[in-house]
């Protein structure tokens, strides 16, 4: 994957504004703060992933199309970020979709075909909606260039385009493709898709809401907030129920997209209602969360790819005890998990904290609707925050800790150093941003200024002002981190001095039963079942226990437990819709495509007569 090098080149290669003249389409590119942010974001994360892929990709050396596709994939995302007219945008948007689709079906097989089809279908629907939005914009401004779109988009345009983008982002009612498509792709591609590609949808939304929008529809912000909160909660709830590591991570992507959407919603609402500082903070939360999620999710996907590579399974019920075999990977993974489940000194908490602050701020505004919606959002966000902790504890605990459950896990070895470096860089950046975010916030200020016209204070020790001049609160991550480290050191040395250091290695106590049996460990399904039971209305799960029939009632040699977790949206919206479509088209097909020539001729004459009747009786 030489994508990275090209991307770096491209950053320096382009001037501020660039128009490539062709006879029909003018490809115009423009660097503004937002696109620069996204270009840097995309290119840096894809650099990490390409470092990772140097070794990881050896698996795919036989079919090098992977690297060609992923190069074009990354390139089209970068060009998408800098494109400055509608046709360019759409072309590269769709190129991005096409190449990611090719990558999704890359490994072949029935599963990836289904996932790929669903993905491409959904993304095509999204593209069509975006196209509709752009067409309406074009009709309004009669220009293809983004320069003329400022403040032109009305509510209809925004609704169409944002729905389209939300499909790509995997926001809740439109998320069905995501948990299928992300896991089946090769891990480095999942990392790109989850870490970067979904954020391109956010790019589009930011562009539409904050640049093109005519800004008079605060309820749109509330809708985004609610949708975001819903997907944050449901995303992580479904994540908790998964067995497949990559599927869990994919659902977690939905959760994080939901969090980003919440931020966008608040920010847009505040913009429409003219609450400046809330707008800025929510935007900061959005941008920070994009970075944080990109970093941690890409590192986690890379890690899961390594697990897959070295154990040949992604099912966490078959893993366990990997931490002993892959010590360094497990440390990196742990930090990634801490970051994504918003544990305090790391970066995930930072963006979530800013989101909380802006939510509290919007409660302060006393706006009739927003107050209640933000209270709900706070509730859902906090619930999803805790659930994220649970889900990722499950992921890490079941996969890396305990005893190996199967042979797959026993034979794992420490991954290659280059692969580990590829993961280590984003993980290191997670820590860096978590502990010392001020540099990045002051850089993000340019983007915030571009989008909202204001900036936030990036001074480490000045408190956040939400709506009044009074300082509201402060989270000084550096201070917290220093305190943590200092207290840790004190405790450590205190115990070093005043306690015994004797250690004995022994079997785990298992009530005197067979200690070697790794099946006695808690399973992943068991881990989440109690939470799932409480929130059972979110899942439409089907579980059954099959016993062997011939054996006596109380001494069964074997029992099989199967559980199937269905997505409620999938079950109650998508599958019925599909059935309806098939039914309607069956009727249509029978009626319209009769093999009988008499019927066909009948249609011919009927339509002639109908036209005649229209001609005679209506037109005159």
């Amino acid at each position, binding site marked *: 994957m030489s994508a990275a090098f090209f991307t770096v080149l491209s950053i320096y290669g382009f001037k501020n504004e660039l128009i490539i003249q062709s006879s029909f389409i003018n490809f115009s590119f423009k660097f503004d703060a937002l696109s620069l942010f996204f270009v840097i974001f995309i290119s840096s994360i894809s650099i990490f992933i390409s470092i990772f892929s140097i070794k990881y990709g050896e698996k795919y050396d036989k079919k090098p199309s992977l690297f060609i596709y992923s190069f074009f994939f990354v390139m089209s995302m970068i060009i998408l970020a800098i494109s400055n007219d509608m046709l360019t945008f759409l072309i590269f948007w769709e190129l991005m979709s096409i190449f990611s689709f090719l990558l999704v079906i890359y490994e072949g097989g029935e599963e990836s075909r289904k996932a790929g089809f669903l993905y491409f279908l959904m993304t095509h629907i999204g593209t069509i909606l975006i196209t509709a939005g752009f067409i309406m914009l074009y009709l309004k401004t009669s220009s293809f260039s983004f320069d003329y779109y400022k403040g032109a988009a009305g509510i209809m345009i925004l609704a169409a385009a944002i729905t389209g983008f939300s499909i790509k982002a995997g926001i809740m009612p439109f998320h069905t493709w995501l948990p299928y498509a992300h896991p089946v792709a090769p891990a480095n591609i999942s990392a790109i898709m989850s870490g970067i590609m979904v954020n391109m949808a956010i790019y589009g939304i930011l562009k539409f809401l904050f640049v093109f929008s005519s800004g008079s529809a605060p309820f749109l912000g509330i809708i985004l907030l609610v949708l975001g909160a819903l997907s944050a909660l449901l995303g992580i709830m479904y994540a908790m129920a998964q067995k497949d590591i990559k599927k869990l991570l994919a659902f977690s992507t939905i959760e994080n997209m939901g969090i980003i959407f919440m931020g966008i919603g608040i920010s847009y609402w505040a913009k429409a209602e003219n609450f400046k500082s809330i707008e800025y903070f929510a935007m900061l939360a959005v941008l920070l969360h994009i970075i944080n999620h990109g970093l941690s999710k890409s590192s986690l996907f890379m890690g899961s790819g390594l697990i897959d590579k070295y154990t040949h399974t992604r099912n966490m019920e078959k893993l366990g005890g990997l*931490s*002993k075999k892959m*010590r360094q990977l*497990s*440390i990196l993974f*742990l930090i990634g998990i801490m970051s994504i*489940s918003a*544990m*305090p000194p790391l970066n995930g*908490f930072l963006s979530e*904290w800013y989101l909380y*602050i802006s939510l*509290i701020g919007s*409660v*302060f505004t*006393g706006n009739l609707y927003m*107050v209640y919606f933000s209270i709900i959002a706070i*509730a859902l966000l*906090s*619930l999803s*925050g*805790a*659930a994220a*902790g*649970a889900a990722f*504890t499950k992921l*890490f*605990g079941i996969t890396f*800790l*305990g*005893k190996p459950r199967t042979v797959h896990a026993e034979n794992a070895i420490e991954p290659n150093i280059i692969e580990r470096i590829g993961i280590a860089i984003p993980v290191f950046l997670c820590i860096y941003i978590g502990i010392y975010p001020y540099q990045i916030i002051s850089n993000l200020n340019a983007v915030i200024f571009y989008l909202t016209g204001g900036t936030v204070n990036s001074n480490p020790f000045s408190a956040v002002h939400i709506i009044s001049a009074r300082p509201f*609160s*402060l*989270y*000084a991550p550096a*201070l*917290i981190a220093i*305190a*943590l480290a200092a*207290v840790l050191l004190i*405790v450590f040395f205190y115990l070093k001095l005043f*306690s*015994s250091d*004797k*250690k*004995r*290695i*022994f079997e*785990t*106590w298992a009530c005197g039963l067979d200690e070697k049996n790794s099946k*006695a*460990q*808690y399973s992943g399904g068991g*881990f*989440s*079942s*109690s*939470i799932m*039971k*409480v929130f059972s209305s979110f899942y439409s799960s089907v579980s059954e226990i099959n016993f062997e029939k011939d054996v006596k009632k109380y001494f069964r040699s074997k029992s099989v437990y199967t559980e199937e977790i269905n997505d409620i949206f999938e079950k109650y919206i998508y599958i019925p819709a599909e059935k309806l479509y098939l039914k309607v088209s069956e009727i249509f097909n029978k009626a319209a495509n009769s093999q009988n020539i008499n019927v066909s001729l009948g249609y011919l004459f009927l339509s002639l007569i109908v036209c005649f009747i229209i001609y005679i009786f209506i037109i005159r």
Partner: protein
Amino acid sequence: MTYNYNIQHLIIGIIQFFTIILLAPFFAGFIHKLKQRARGQKGINIFQFYINFNKLLKKEIVLSKDATFISEIAPYIVFVSYLVILLMLPAFYRYSLLGVSSDVILIAYSLALATFFMTLYAMDQGSAFGGLGASREWFLTVLSEPSLIFIFISLAIYTKQGRITDIFYFIQKGAADAFLLGVNSDAVSIAIPFLLFISLFIVGISENARIPVDNPETHLELTMFHEANILEASGKHLGLFEYGSYLKLTVFLTVMSLILFPYMAVNIYQIPLSLIVYILKMIILCILIAGVEIVSPKMRVFRVPNLLSVSFMLSLIAMILSIRGF
């Protein structure tokens, strides 16, 4: 409110920090003692938990052979995350050492951090009990976390302050203005803190593995919550976990005490009085908790959500009330 750190604040902050740390096992022991006395037992020494801790430090560590680095670091991180919360928390002095960054959400998430590592520790040895404990612990946390954050955010909205030191100072000042000087301040309400107190009490009971939810004294696999997590711990690791749980209890008790009756020293001369008030409040709360533990039986696991939903509703009502307050 601005934070101008001077040496006096720092010193008092450090003193406050260590005072709470030192008092923590005492409160836990006191509750224990009360419960035992109420059952007609002679009961342990009130300072028994100090002795326990000291003894645990002297003991050797028995590590499972399946244990990984998590087992080595988790006890420290759990302990330290409680300590950091205590660093932010004011108890009897208006400022705390880390008061400048004592955001309420940070506190709630730091608690989650401790839970996170404790459950990881539980799952580390591959014991069936560990997984069970971790699962149940997260089950409780997922349910109580919204309430906890709601309580904190209600406080923040109620006082328009985001930092816990500011929040309680604000309440204290408002109350003092209202009751002592007769200034009518709209920031004073009795209902809201009361609701929040009850809500926090419920959350505190569930988070600290107290009786209607969990029984900290049994080692029966059906009833274990907290204990299952640290079943494999021994030696100083167990000591750290045990001490951590006292600290957590103290954190909750302190916040409860401050919600109920915020009295913190504003200057150095009020410290003795406020310290006494603080200890008195804590003892009253300990009695309260012990009373609840004595009179109520342990709940079935899946009835806990009902209890916690009550807490959630109370905090929700409190939040809505506090919006109306403006």
